[in-house]
């Protein structure tokens, strides 16, 4: 059952989320703890994320551990916001996640909850030099 749930978090790669990537991307957050690890990428950043403890279960709160990896000469973001929505349903979560910096580009996001099975999209907003860079990654949750 646990294996099934882990498999349920099959990362669904979106074409819009797959720009030309620098070679550093795949290694970002490779040491994150957690049952599954996902990666959101842009030309300038990669954000690796892993649900903590159990795999994501519909209707249960979960936390993410994050690794933010600037590519090339990009600066480390000053803050990061984490959110999620169901693009097809056009609704978000019923909860607002909080993010705590752990140092060295690592963060922990708490208070997330997916209240329906289906395709969700993680949204990572990185604040960099007065602008926001948005990275997204879709996940399927059963």
């Amino acid at each position, binding site marked *: *059952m646990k294996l099934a749930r882990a498999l349920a978090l099959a990362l669904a790669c979106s074409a819009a989320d797959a720009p030309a990537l620098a070679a550093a991307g795949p290694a970002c957050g490779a040491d994150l703890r957690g049952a599954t690890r996902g990666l959101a990428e842009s030309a300038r950043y990669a954000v690796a994320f892993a649900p903590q403890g159990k795999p994501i279960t519909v209707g249960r709160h979960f936390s993410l551990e994050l690794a933010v990896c600037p590519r090339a000469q990009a600066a480390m973001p000053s803050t990061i916001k984490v959110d999620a929505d169901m*693009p097809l349903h056009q609704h978000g979560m019923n*909860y607002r996640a909080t993010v705590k910096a752990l140092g060295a580009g690592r963060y922990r996001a*708490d208070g997330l909850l997916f*209240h329906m099975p289906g395709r969700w999209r993680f949204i990572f907003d990185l604040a960099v030099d007065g602008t926001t860079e948005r990275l997204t990654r879709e996940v399927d949750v*059963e």
Partner: protein
Amino acid sequence: MKRRVRRGLCRVLVALLVGMQLDISGAAPDSGLLDFTTAERRSILQHGPWPLRPARDPGNAVAGRTDAIALGQRLFFDPRLSADGTLSCASCHRLDAAFADGQPRSIGREVLDRNAPSLWNAVHERWYGWDGAADSLWSQSMRPILDAREMAASAAHVRRAIAGDAELACRYRRAFGHPPARDDDETALVHAAKAIGAFVGTLVSGRTPFDRFRDALARGDARAASVYPIEAQRGLRLFVGRSRCNLCHVGPMFSNGEFADTGLPFFVRPGVVDPGRHGGIAALQASGYNLLSRWSDEARDGAAATKTRHVDPQHRNFGEFKVPSLRNVADTAPYMHDGQLATLDDVVRHYSELNLDRLHADGLQILVPLKLSDPERADLVAFLRTLSDPTARAWRPPATAAPCRGAPRNR
């Protein structure tokens, strides 16, 4: 000899024909088990196993403690907690109605706005009340006690009711280590609520025909699974399939614990609407008894208060009501937040003939009219009826042991 061979061939032929017929109708040959697909089986298995791991009322240090449960049980059934001595918690959460009350809208000192939800398995829920205005059983317990339209009591009244009864006062002292203090009504109220929360937290219903079917399916025991009525299997297939009921009614509780707009009118009376979850979040955040308050026995930044810290009020919450658990649903008529649907068939018919104009979805319609045929509706209802624990109907509160010894020290 020839006759015996011919008879045997006939039997084989009949068996083959019967098998073919079953196969055509969607059941596996030679069994009363539908040919569930791998995806259907995976969905079905997610509704178990049952029972869940034991849970406790959050922020309630006496949850699970025998003395508190015994006190809470007495308080739950005691009408002296109400201002005029006529109403107890059990007035609207009746033993003979699955801890609901069988009324469309409950009747306190007047007819209220909402239907009394069942208390079975409440300890496994995240939010309490149709609007989720409480984040624990103990804080929820205070609402009807203090509500002027319900028990209309006060903290002072509750303290006096406990301190003035030798048995209650003794049990209070056992549960909390001291008698209710005369100069601290509020602590007595919160303690009473925590004792009631501890009692309600013990109300976990047992296994159901569905649970037995689900577990048989999980272990690949087709013989045991085929005992489950075929009409319930067809209803289950609809539930996890075309009807997509399991978008919201997920997991072993058959609820995601959240809130939804189901296209029902939410007028309380002409010109007055029930704001549902929108008002519930406001009430929760304004409450002095939520899990972030000084009355909670757990840390504000602890796991139990995660939901309260992170809940995010949104405009779409207006008119949303809690997605109820479907366990024991056949025993909790009438249905929906204000009891406007009398029977399970009415509920299924509502979703079958949904009025899309009442829904406020911007994107892909989550709820669409199911357009179920009469037999399909009957199948879905047959399935829902298998979610009841038959022993829950006969449940009676455990007899409390010998009278508590010792006179109250402080009135």
